């Protein structure tokens, strides 16, 4: 699923020795993915650039501590996610509900909007407006749930890798992922229900 990994071409030994060529390669192979993750986590391109910057500087300074038990990309995702979440926490600018608390109350999300918009013509589904609705809905998720969703469903990490990147258990990861997915579904279904009613689609 993930195209991030060119692990075989990365020379861990060279990285640990802070070989500049190896590090330049690490940056170029992973920076687009880290940037997109940061962009979707923070919702802001300047912040995303800062996150990428901090991620690779930290990676460079701490590469000796990378033990190679996980993939290099998982390690980078972990640093980047931490940076982005810290930035959001520092900012507390209200765009993102900060909900890092313990996950409780399993079935608390009840789907409310039951409208079958899947059968709409393709050109009615993926419009610019739909894109915007989706992006905004994603920014309405708690940052913790959003991170779980982005790592699993967008970056294509396995449950184990995503849990590792977020430093949570696999079961906690699954709960966050489910909440994120259902909340996005709800937002998109609200939107399509409105459009179908208004435009008679």
């Amino acid at each position: 699923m993930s195209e991030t990994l060119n692990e075989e071409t990365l020379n861990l030994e060279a990285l640990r020795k802070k070989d500049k060529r190896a590090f330049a390669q690490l940056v170029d192979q992973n920076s687009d993915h880290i940037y997109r993750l940061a962009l979707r986590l923070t919702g802001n391109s300047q912040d995303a650039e800062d996150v990428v910057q901090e991620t690779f500087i930290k990676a460079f300074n701490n590469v000796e501590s990378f033990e190679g038990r996980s993939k290099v990309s998982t390690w980078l995702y972990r640093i980047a996610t931490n940076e982005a979440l810290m930035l959001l926490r520092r900012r507390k600018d209200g765009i993102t509900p900060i909900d890092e608390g313990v996950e409780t109350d399993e079935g608390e999300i009840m789907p409310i909007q039951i409208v079958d918009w899947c059968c709409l013509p393709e050109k009615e589904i993926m419009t610019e407006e739909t894109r915007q609705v989706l992006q905004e809905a994603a920014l309405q998720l708690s940052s913790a749930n959003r991170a779980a969703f982005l790592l699993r469903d967008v970056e294509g990490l396995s449950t184990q890798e995503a849990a590792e990147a977020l430093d949570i258990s696999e079961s906690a990861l699954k709960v966050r992922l489910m909440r994120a997915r259902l909340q996005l579904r709800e937002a998109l279904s609200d939107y399509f229900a409105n459009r179908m009613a208004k435009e008679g689609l």
Partner: protein
Amino acid sequence: MNHHHGLECQDLLNNISAYIDGELDDELCGKIEAHIESCPNCKVVINTLKRTIQLYQEDGESETFPLDARHRLFTALDLDEDLDLSD
């Protein structure tokens, strides 16, 4: 929503994420599929959930790390920007 087939809508919802990821054992998976057959609401929820994820995935391979930001990063790390990294 309905209450037949030994599995209720809420049971389905509790497992919906694992279901669409194909992580459930055959028995539970079978029960869910039987439930969907007779519960149009759950069917809609599952289909729209899958489609939502798909749509989000489709929308987002376009951005790349900007070149000026790459330049700043390479400078900060004292890396050589002119290395030919293409294979």
